[in-house]
């Protein structure tokens, strides 16, 4: 089987900041709601949409939304090398950076290492309103308190696709059969998903387009999430490392 490099291209100009991706992700991956009073820094959102603006006042003011999820770094993957007990691993077959909650000690070193803040810690044991645990997705195991978790391109769906392929007696999964929840949920089709190694795939094409960039590219972590915007200020704010202007 040829090794895949699953990746995404996100068209910022298409994102309406509706938040469907965030909610769909939480539903798909059994991410619990935070307890009352917890803030945005203690909650878990595998994909998070940041509102940004060009810092100007009306009429010059412009705003946009940047969805940020695990960038699935392919090189010097910051979180992999730091984990003291091999709870993080880049799957050679898919290029997906996997996090193993059951192996995780909860030292949070990987979170400190991640420049995208795409990793989340379970500060509480997961809890859903009475009865709602019936509505959990059987393909994803709920995590326990005290471990780190993150986006893994809806790996439950990858398993399901594998399963269907196997039932058909095939090894390879059908690309159309495996799409992460956020991609599926996005009403404007701002997010494209596919195999970057496959030159036929949409992502492989759009990733190379003009106006496309990656977050903190200069860190040399070779992220597999490519962003795109025709607006210069968006590229400036989103691509540039920590500037004082334009905070969400």
């Amino acid at each position, binding site marked *: 089987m040829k090794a895949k490099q699953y990746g995404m291209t996100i068209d910022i100009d298409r994102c309406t900041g509706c938040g469907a991706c965030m909610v769909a992700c939480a539903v798909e991956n059994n991410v619990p709601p935070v307890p009352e009073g917890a803030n945005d820094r203690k909650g878990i959102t595998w994909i998070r949409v940041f509102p940004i603006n060009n810092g100007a006042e009306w009429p010059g003011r412009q705003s946009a939304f940047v969805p940020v999820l695990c960038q699935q770094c392919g090189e010097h993957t910051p979180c992999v090398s730091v984990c003291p007990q091999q709870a993080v*691993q880049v799957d*050679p077959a898919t290029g997906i950076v996997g996090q193993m*909650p*059951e192996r995780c000690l909860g030292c949070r070193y990987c979170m400190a290492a991640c420049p995208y803040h795409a990793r989340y810690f379970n500060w509480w044991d997961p809890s859903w309103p009475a009865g709602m645990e019936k509505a959990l997705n059987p393909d*994803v*195991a*709920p995590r326990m308190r005290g471990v780190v978790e993150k986006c*893994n391109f809806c790996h439950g769906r990858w398993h399901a696709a594998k*399963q269907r392929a*196997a039932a058909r007696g095939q090894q390879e999964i059908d690309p159309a059969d495996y799409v992460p929840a956020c991609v599926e949920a996005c009403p404007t089709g701002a997010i494209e998903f596919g195999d970057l190694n496959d030159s036929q795939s949409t992502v492989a094409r759009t990733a190379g387009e003009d106006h496309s960039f990656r977050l903190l590219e200069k860190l040399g972590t070779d992220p597999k999430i490519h962003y795109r915007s025709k607006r210069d200020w968006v590229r400036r704010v989103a691509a540039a490392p920590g500037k004082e202007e334009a905070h969400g």
Partner: protein
Amino acid sequence: MGTTAAEKQFIDRYVTPQREVQWAVYARQPENVYFSHAAHVKLAHLECSSCHRDHGQADTLRLYEEDRISGYSRDIWRDMKMDDCVACHRQRGIENSCLDCHK
């Protein structure tokens, strides 16, 4: 049905009050394991007995044992441990990263 004492008891306990039977599964893997029988039977053509013991042949079932602290079936820790999965995968040269089997 209900001829033997056991069957009768079963009917009184579960069928009549329509209660779900809490089946004790020897091979119940932990929640974080994704196991596809299709992949192992249809693609790899494994015999059932190669993982599950020869329940087919036996006419009595072993007692189900469960670890008091971890709550896992003892069978898993006997011959369905992760090490066993990994060993077999290695042997057959199937790529094994955590995410292959863990969900």
